[in-house]
């Protein structure tokens, strides 16, 4: 990055905007097709009721809640990279943070759909929020489900603001590079930003505070999501290790998704100077670290279950690797604990092809982790007479596919209309133009 100039940075990052490309177009069409499948399945569910969703009592949380937790988790890496690594002054975040943050917003937006889908009568979703009403009822603030509503809404709002203020100077740079209608649109979106000393001063202060607010927020959000499970007395869920275990898993899956998104984007937009192997290696190391924490958490869960001497708890933990869902359990263990071990080798960490493959494996593994937690515990609770074997049906799978379509559609649209690498921050990493340098050379 040292050979770049400010002008080159602006030009390179704005260049791919609006330029149609075949590969991007195909990806977008595929995403919209997947979304249509999901939309059709939802239409059927709205017409016929939640019964079509394949729930089988007592498994009343299935693919929808699995996918909800999966997408919330994906979002976490974006905030980790944009906020936590900002506070730690990690230089490598600069190249990757904008795309990761966009991933966060779209992942949380996707996650937010699932409680609504899961609630069945989605037109009553607003009942979740506290407001004075003629029924004189308020939500129960002691319930983790209400905490979750607060946590997810706050997370989406604050991440969206943080993301938008990060974009303001870059939208101003885009405004100054494009012509016609685009100039007016970016001019309005950047709110009239001019990059004056006064503006930068307050902007940087606010940015720092947002990073400081987002840091505990991101940890709290997945902790609250984990309490949706851990606050109940269901065997396999009722454990104090859940919050740190969920947070580590969230960052693990999110980093994998960042790799999945950035590796194709790098070659599509020819951003080899901005997204270097060095960036990808750092992400791979983060995957390795969080994957190790996750493996340790899996082991600790077993220790706690055994040490608790609770037959129901231990029964669930024996059921997971040996019962009906053994395939899901071993898929989870191999995808999350075994395959990522390849990242210990520098050759793998610096090979984009291998990183991409491992990132896909981790994505699959992390979805199955949540499925494994939810389905096995509910299908095998206290009463053996009520044990069932739940598997998702076509409607649920259609909506799962639709959620990927929804997420990728927004992401693909975003990368074509907004600078996906932070222009101003990349410039901060470039040596400033100095007269003294010119004289020396």
């Amino acid at each position, binding site marked *: 990055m040292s050979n770049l100039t400010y002008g080159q940075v602006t030009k390179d990052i704005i260049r791919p905007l609006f330029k149609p490309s075949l590969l991007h177009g195909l990806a977008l069409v595929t995403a919209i097709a997947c979304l249509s499948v999901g939309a059709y399945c939802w239409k059927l569910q709205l017409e016929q009721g939640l019964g079509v969703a394949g729930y089988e009592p007592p498994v009343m949380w299935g693919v929808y809640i699995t996918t909800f937790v999966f997408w919330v988790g994906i979002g976490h890496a974006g905030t980790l990279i944009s906020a936590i690594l900002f506070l730690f002054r990690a230089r490598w975040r600069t190249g990757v943070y904008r795309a990761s943050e966009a991933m966060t917003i779209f992942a949380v937006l996707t996650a937010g759909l699932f409680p609504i889908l899961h609630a069945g009568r989605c037109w009553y979703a607003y009942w979740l929020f506290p407001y004075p009403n003629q029924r004189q009822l308020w939500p129960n603030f*002691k319930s983790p489900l209400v905490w979750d509503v607060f946590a997810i809404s706050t997370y989406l709002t604050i991440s969206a*603001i943080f993301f938008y203020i990060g974009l303001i100077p870059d939208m101003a740079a885009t405004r100054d590079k494009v012509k016609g209608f685009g100039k007016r649109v970016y001019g309005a979106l950047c709110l009239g930003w001019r990059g004056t000393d006064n503006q930068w001063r307050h902007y940087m202060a606010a940015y720092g505070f947002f990073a400081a607010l987002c840091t505990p927020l991101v940890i709290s959000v997945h902790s609250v999501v984990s309490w949706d499970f851990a606050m109940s007395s269901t065997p396999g869920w009722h454990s104090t290790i859940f919050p740190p275990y969920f947070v580590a898993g969230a960052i693990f899956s999110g980093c994998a998704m960042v790799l999945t998104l950035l590796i194709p984007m790098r070659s599509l937009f020819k951003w080899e100077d901005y997204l270097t192997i060095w960036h990808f290696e750092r992400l791979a190391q983060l995957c390795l670290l969080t994957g190790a924490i996750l493996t340790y958490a899996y082991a600790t869960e077993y220790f706690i279950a055994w040490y608790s001497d609770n037959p129901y708890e231990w029964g669930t933990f024996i059921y997971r690797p040996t019962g009906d869902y053994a395939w899901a359990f071993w898929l989870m263990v191999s995808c999350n604990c075994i395959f990522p071990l390849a990242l210990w080798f520098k050759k793998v960490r610096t090979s984009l092809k291998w990183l991409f493959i491992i990132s896909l494996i981790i994505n699959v593994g992390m979805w199955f982790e949540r499925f494994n937690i939810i389905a096995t515990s509910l299908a095998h609770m206290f009463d053996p007479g009520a044990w069932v074997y739940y598997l998702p049906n076509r409607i649920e799978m259609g909506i799962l596919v639709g959620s990927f379509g929804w997420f990728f559609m927004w992401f693909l649209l975003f990368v074509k209309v907004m600078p996906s690498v932070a222009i101003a921050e990349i410039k901060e990493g470039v040596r400033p133009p*100095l007269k003294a340098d010119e004289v020396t050379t």
Partner: protein
Amino acid sequence: MSANVKGVFAHLDCLLTGIDRLEKAGFKDMIVAAPLPRHEIEEAIYKGEPSPVRWWTLCGGILGGSLGFILSSLTALDWPMAIPGGKPLVAIPPYIVIVFECTVLFGGIATLLGMLYYCRIPTKSMELEVCDPRFSDDHFGLVLKDVDESRREEAATILSGAGAIEVTPQPEGDAADEPTEDKEVADVE
């Protein structure tokens, strides 16, 4: 009659020299535009004085946290259910989650409002004197506002002497000297 004097800089060290010399010459009302935040510029102009946005964040956070606690407790008291086992209606541990989330939400929104207020955005007409597409790309701008006619020539000469590649209005006789020969050129890391 007073008017603006504008200098365009291609180099950061020249800009810092310009700010320094203008301040020493007694020019106060200046706007510097840059494509990126540079601590040297902030330090040269504000001398380390922190932005007041922090007070907005603090007040927003305190307000949000208080509202979160008031909302959860008053609604619990509004419909007092008899809970067996002596559990309190207003329970602190579960409400901490609501208090925390509201603290962050209100703190964040207040920070945004504070930033918008002090940056004076959104606007259509603000600081038109620094409207120059180069300032979001690879140049720095320095505008002295409302300079008296008698001092305009002096300001333009200082800017030009510091190494500005373009000065409006142009100084008479083009008094630009090589800034690097001057020992005052600012050090930039």
